């Protein structure tokens, strides 16, 4: 079975964020990047499926040159091949534009299964996977915790709200967006890192030019406080004393 995993490179969670001069995105200078966490769970699911059923795991990522470090990390964890869609203009594209890039590259691979995270840690729109499925004419299921492949069909466990779940069956090829927590993430081993150097990374140029955008990001800014927050400062012992005062006389839980 050929499994394609669409991954995204995003700023590190703890990275200090400052707004770019044009006010339309963040300042990317000096930022460190990593794999989008939900996509790491998608990769993990793909690697485990391969261990069970055999086949090939191909990772796919669109973005500038820097995304190749994330692709190499995926190879080090056990992916067989990587495809880099060279695109310096992701910010100029909306979800449909980005999904179109991924769809063109995915079509050329004719995978049996496409996995991706349920949303990205940066934009968080949570739709690239579903749009990709729609562009490729594949059935999809979202927010998946478990995947079982039986012959030419798929049985998945979907997370619903409030602690409910549901099984869904569908034919292959299909696309799934993966929820975190279904598996434990693996680390790349030293051997894996060595092996990754010999694995194939193909660079492809975007086939689709930028079409007009359906939505535009006009401005980014720091959120306004919803509450008047009283900040408590001092040594840990001083802060603790102040907090206990609040707990006693204002919150009244002591």
């Amino acid at each position: 079975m050929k499994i394609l995993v669409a991954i995204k490179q995003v700023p590190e969670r703890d990275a200090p964020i400052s707004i770019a001069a044009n006010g339309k995105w963040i300042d990317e200078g000096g930022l460190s990047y990593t794999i989008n966490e939900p996509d790491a769970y998608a990769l993990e699911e793909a690697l485990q499926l391969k261990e069970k059923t055999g086949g090939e795991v191909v990772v796919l990522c669109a973005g500038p040159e820097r995304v190749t470090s994330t692709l190499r990390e995926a190879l080090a964890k056990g992916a067989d091949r990587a495809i880099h869609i060279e695109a310096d203009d992701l910010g100029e594209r909306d979800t449909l534009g980005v999904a179109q890039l991924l769809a063109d590259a995915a079509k050329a691979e004719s995978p049996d299964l496409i996995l991706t995270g349920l949303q990205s840690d940066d934009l968080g729109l949570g739709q690239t996977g579903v749009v990709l499925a729609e562009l490729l004419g594949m059935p999809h299921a979202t927010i998946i915790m478990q995947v079982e492949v039986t012959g030419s069909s798929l049985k998945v466990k979907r997370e619903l709200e409030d602690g409910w779940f549901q099984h869904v069956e569908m034919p292959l090829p299909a696309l799934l967006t993966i929820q975190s927590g279904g598996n434990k993430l693996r680390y790349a081993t030293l051997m894996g890192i060595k092996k990754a150097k010999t694995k194939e990374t193909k660079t492809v140029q975007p086939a689709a030019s930028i079409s007009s955008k359906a939505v535009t990001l006009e401005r980014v800014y720091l959120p306004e406080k919803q509450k008047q927050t009283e900040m408590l400062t001092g040594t840990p012992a001083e802060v603790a004393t102040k907090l206990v005062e609040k707990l006693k006389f204002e919150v009244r839980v002591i």
Partner: protein
Amino acid sequence: MSSVLVLMEQRGGIWNRMSFEALAAGQQLAAKLGIECSAAVLGENLDTLASELTGKNLAKVFAVQYELLKTYTSDGYVVVLEQLLKHAAPAYVLMPHTYQVRDFAPALATRFKQVLISDVIAIHDGPIFVRQLLQGKLNADYKHSSAGPCFLSVQAGTFRAEAIEAGTATLENFTPQLEASQIRSTPGEPFREAAQTIDLSAAPVIVSVGRGIGEQENIAIIEELASALGAELAASRPICDNGWLPMERQVGSSGQTVSPKLYLAVGISGAIQHLVGMKGSKTVIAINKDENAPIFEVADYGVVGDLFEIVPALTKAVLAAKS
């Protein structure tokens, strides 16, 4: 004429309550733009639900009753809603930001060459749609820049269902064209893993732990604080994903919704999925090393610092105050 259409969500004849927040959003957007607002509901045996909607201030209520829509499937909803939207021709399509909407709405928008503006937390004049980026660290203003319908989903708690205006609406039954063969997936019955043994929703005091705790063994210091306060222990999703605490202790959009007297958030950054679950808390105290963590936007009292120093000191002070 341009209009707003709100897609209401129901399962087995029971509303998803978030639908009414979307309905309130729809009415307010329509009023702002000086256009009509309508609502639609899909499924089977919808007479009761549809008649409830005809008592609201809406132009029309579309009831799409069809056997193949009895159980939700992405394919079924996309095919039918494409037909309904072509018929009703709204300029704006509003939905609650539920798991179901997240499953079908991006595909539906794609059929109209549109992009869903998901997880909207405010609507300003323009109209400008506000959503969060980078786990709540930034807000972003989005604009719809195309001729087709604008697809939006609104985050829980953004609009108040009580704000819905009453009125009278015309009921229109819409008959879709849908074949069983167009539905490629077969959904099973919803189930729960195990009986929930911990009901966080009733807890008056909650101490909740997030990523900042670093390692599983460190959770002990949070447990000590919780026990000193007589509080229930809770967590954000990554803690439960790692198996450090059971899933049933998770607060957030995929976990439990809580409304305690005190919510003490330790090492929790406050991504929107978590805030949604805890926003009913009366008082929020946040301890986090990052002064820009979004949790401080909703906290009444904030402490910027190292939780490994502050939490043990706090536990000690609480025990001393109680003795």
